[in-house]
């Protein structure tokens, strides 16, 4: 007991002797934007404003919930150091939940992400997004709601995923994709627009529109919403479910249906000297809204139409990535290697070209689990 008392006393009295940073001197990064102009990286960081909500002060909702700082450097690391120097805060990346790359920085995205992955204080589950234009423009938008501006952005990414419009990508996943044979990944594309609403100080807001296809060493290519929606079906990712909502038209009437339990199976084969990719999708659906007088009678038609919609989405996505750019963004190489190692041995040295010349076939079976109008 005596020893314990001595130990406790030592801990309580001597801990102040050890140098440590105060909370208000740390810049707790919530979101990071990275731009590159060909020679200089510019890093824009939204960090927690300790003068507003929580921190070492009482809550003051009149103060902005986030501070923004920007600095440049030859590398991202040196830009962060410069930013720490300028802002007077030691930047802590462990809580950064969104990382946005501007168009210029997407060309060498792999190196930038490797830096983030090897930085042990960074948050490996942070969302990685692309910006249409500059990432600084995205970072400059401050949402007033909640304790942190970034929460709103995360909600948007989450909603986009739930509606099946765009597939969220997290840090280690994006870095992994860029290490696969075709060194490519698709990131959700953020765009600034003038909302005119009062939810931001600037009167502007952010919208997620499609995706950016990043291939190492090339300029990013833009994918439409339909294409990114198809990718979500085929490879939901660690933070997605693949579930989505579709609108189909039956006898002139719009029907909204929730698709869930989506499973996809990709079967590769060689047809002569061309790679053939057969995709089978299975899903369940339930009605969300309809103006049909008797939705039960339309069950079979609805299953067929939903199946068509999912097949089109998947085909569009594969055509836009595999065939147009030879970019494997759905982990197809793993499927080929595990299912048909002999095919992999044949095509691995010229994989991108095989993808460009591939034949794609998509089939989908949907079963209507229930017709209840509510979830």
């Amino acid at each position, binding site marked *: 007991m005596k020893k314990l008392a001595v130990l406790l006393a030592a801990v309580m009295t001597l801990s102040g002797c050890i140098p440590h940073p105060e909370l208000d001197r740390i810049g707790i990064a919530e979101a990071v934007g990275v731009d590159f102009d060909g020679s200089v990286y510019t890093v824009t960081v939204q960090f927690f404003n300790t003068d507003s909500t929580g921190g070492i002060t009482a809550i003051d909702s009149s103060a902005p919930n986030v501070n923004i700082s920007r600095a440049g450097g030859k590398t991202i690391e040196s830009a962060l150091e410069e930013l720490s120097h300028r802002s007077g805060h030691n930047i802590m990346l462990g809580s950064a939940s969104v990382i946005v790359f501007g168009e210029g920085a997407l060309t060498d995205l792999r190196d930038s992400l490797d830096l983030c*992955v090897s930085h*042990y204080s960074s948050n*490996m589950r942070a969302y990685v997004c692309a910006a249409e234009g500059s990432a600084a423009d995205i970072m400059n938008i401050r949402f007033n709601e909640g304790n942190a501006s970034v929460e709103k952005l995360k909600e948007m990414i989450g909603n986009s995923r739930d509606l099946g419009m765009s597939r969220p990508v*997290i840090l*280690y996943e994006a870095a*992994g994709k860029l290490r696969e044979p075709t060194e490519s990944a698709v990131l959700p594309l953020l765009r600034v627009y003038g909302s005119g609403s009062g939810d931001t100080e600037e009167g502007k807001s952010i919208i997620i529109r499609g995706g950016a296809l990043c291939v190492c060493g090339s300029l990013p290519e833009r994918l439409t919403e339909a294409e990114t929606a198809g990718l979500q079906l085929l490879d939901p990712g660690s933070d997605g479910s693949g579930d989505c909502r579709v609108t189909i038209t039956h006898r002139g009437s719009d029907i909204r249906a929730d698709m869930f339990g989506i499973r996809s199976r990709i079967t590769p084969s060689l047809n002569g000297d061309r790679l053939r990719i057969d995709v089978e999708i299975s899903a369940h659906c339930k009605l969300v809204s309809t103006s049909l007088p008797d939705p039960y009678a339309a069950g079979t038609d609805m299953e067929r139409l939903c199946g068509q919609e999912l097949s089109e989405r998947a085909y569009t996505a594969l055509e836009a990535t595999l065939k147009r750019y030879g970019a494997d963004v759905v982990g197809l190489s793993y499927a080929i290697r595990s299912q048909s*190692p002999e095919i992999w041995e044949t095509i691995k040295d010229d994989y991108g070209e095989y993808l460009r010349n591939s034949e794609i076939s998509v089939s989908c079976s949907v079963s209507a689990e229930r017709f209840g109008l509510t979830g």
Partner: protein
Amino acid sequence: MINNKISAGSFAAVLALSRVFTEVSSLPWEHTEYGMQRFTAVILSFLLTGAVYIPAAAAIKHCGGESPITVIAGRSKLLSGFTGVLLSVFLLTAAAETGLRSHYYASVTVLDYAPPLYFCVTAGTALLFAVHKGLEASVRTGTIAAAIFVLLLVLIICALAGEFHTERLYPAFTDRPETLWSEVIKEFSRNSEFLIFAVLCGNVSSKALRTVPLYLGGSCLTILLMTFMYNTVFGHLTSRLMFPFYTLSSISDITLLHRLNGIDVTVWIMAGILKTALFSLSFGNIVRVCFGCSKAADIASLLFGAAALALSELFTVIPALTGTAARICGSGVPLMCAALFLPAAALLCSPKSDVRTGGAGKGTAA
């Protein structure tokens, strides 16, 4: 401070933890590669390690559970002194390597830019405490650390249940046949626990030889499970990760323990210190048995710990020295030398009249 109260199970748990520690705390020149070859390399290396333990196990059984050094010391002073010097050099190198691994792991993950002094003071104090409390307390602490690691592993598996992409496994034994043998040897050379077992097996209360299958089986299965997780969660990214297990724990997002990397670092720093403490206690036992200096054993253990930490610091500042040491240790030759010399010498020094039946181990130090 050496006593005879450790059980084979807890000894095996601590040895397995220290083996997995070596696997987790990669040095800058060690990388875990993605691919099925990793499974092959791990299995082959453990088969080789198992083969290395056979002569030692035969010698221990032949000598009625006595550790080889006790048998050698009871027969020839010259051979005993030679054995003591040889084992001391091996132990010091292995302990310094352990110190280097712990320091590097702590520096990169939690200490970041903290001065080396922080690590040395923390590890040195813990080591002092471990050596002072003795083998039983160290093994007990190690068993707790092993239990925490198992809990961590279970939590990680639960948290990442939906992220194991089994399609990333493919039917192949080798990916890079030209590197398979070097990978096997590198894995094999990481089994410096052999030295601890050979020196301290006399302190196991009963059935000391049960330690070997338990420790080898446990550590092999754990490393295979970890390899499975690296391959299925990270795929090609595995080859880019310095500490894949740390990254696994840092992406494990569960409700109450949001990100498990803090637990991970605690376990491995604890394991590193414990492993160094076991080497120190082994050295103390050598001083006691091989050199016959019982009174100086405890202080020798402490000095050994300090020397190991100092040498590990030296490794961090002299890359050429580190490279040479890594090449020698990584070749597996020192381990093989110890594994062949000890049982051979023990069998040579064990006259038939000394042979006792039964597995009751006798303490190597009174």
